[in-house]
């Protein structure tokens, strides 16, 4: 489930953010409890709690005392904004390196992107 190397709490936080971004979790949905996370992924509950604490700090989740953790109304937009900022540095630039190393014409890349994402041909 997790790669065995980078901090597990960060991987859990990223998974929850992915779920929010893709609409699997919507605003005001309750997320599983730390103990449910711990049991499901076979990890220490404190590790799951750390992921939740990070997501509260980032404004993705909010806590209702005695009830649990819920998805913040603005979470999806916040994650989207954050990922967009990082997209060029973290996704596109490494891809550009690869495109250059392989000698693939840029026009081919653009054409394939347009084919994969129809309806946005600007």
């Amino acid at each position, binding site marked *: 489930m997790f790669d*065995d190397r980078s901090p597990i*709490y960060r991987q859990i936080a990223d998974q929850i953010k992915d779920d929010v971004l893709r609409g699997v979790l919507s605003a005001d949905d309750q997320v599983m409890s730390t*103990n449910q996370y*711990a*049991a499901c992924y*076979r990890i220490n*509950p*404190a*590790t799951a709690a750390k992921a939740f604490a990070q997501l509260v700090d980032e404004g993705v989740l909010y806590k209702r005392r005695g009830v649990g953790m819920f998805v913040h109304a603005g979470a999806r937009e916040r994650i989207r904004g954050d990922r967009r900022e990082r997209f060029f540095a973290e996704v596109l630039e490494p891809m550009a390196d690869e495109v250059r190393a392989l000698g693939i014409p840029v026009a081919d890349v653009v054409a394939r992107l347009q084919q994969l994402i129809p309806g946005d041909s600007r």
Partner: protein
Amino acid sequence: MISTSALQVRYGDVAALHSLDLDLPAGRIYGLLGRNGAGKTTLLSTLAGLRRPSAGSVTVDGAPVFENARVTTRICLIRDDGGLGDGTDTLHDILTMAAILRPGFDTGYAASLMDRFALPRRRTLRALSRGQRSAFGIVVGLASRADLTMFDEAHLGMDAANRQVFHDELLADYASRPRTVILSTHLIEEQGPLFEQVLILHEGRLLLRADTDELRSQGVAVTGPAGLVDDFVSGLTVLGERRLGPTKQVTVFGALDERRRALARSLQLQLGPVALQELFIHLTGGAA
């Protein structure tokens, strides 16, 4: 809170533990790691009050442990050899005795664990396989619900499926009844995620104590042309290196800051994670 202060344990001329100071707040799951002979079993049996400190002290909530029945009834240590009598008692009888001797023992929970591990109640301990004996130790350890529960490589010989049952039951029972658990293990990758903190013993001393997840992010493998890698890692804590032709990989300890990461990108060096087990091997002196 379990505390040791200047704890020393000697076997004749040989010191198994040197002046160990340790405070373990209650209610957490700790992993105790160390090479063979590092002192793990000595530490756990001293914490359990089974061994008298040669010097220094061991206390639980301020009370000395050794020969203090009021404290030791709240402690359960399961050893890799079971440590549950001479083997001629049936499992049923051992469970009955445990229920009498241990104030928190939950007979119903023990029964459900016996079923999960498919253990035969009417058999004697001696008649069981190695893995079954270990599973039975796990049953006693979990069902004791002791405030301080320690498993000293208690999983030895258990198959992967039964170890998974052990881990699942441990987490589920810990969630509903938080208590202090210490597991000593060599199964670092498999059991690492269960621990909130890891303690690494090395040659009778505490080498390192860290949140498991933090420790995991402390190791970085730097890979690239040998000259560039050497320049990049100078001044960092180098744990080990490997070379393949012109390429070199160096394992460093200590998270890299953003400036270093940017430098690595500009030099086109690859930065990769290091598994907990690999970090452990490097920190405790590498493979012999």
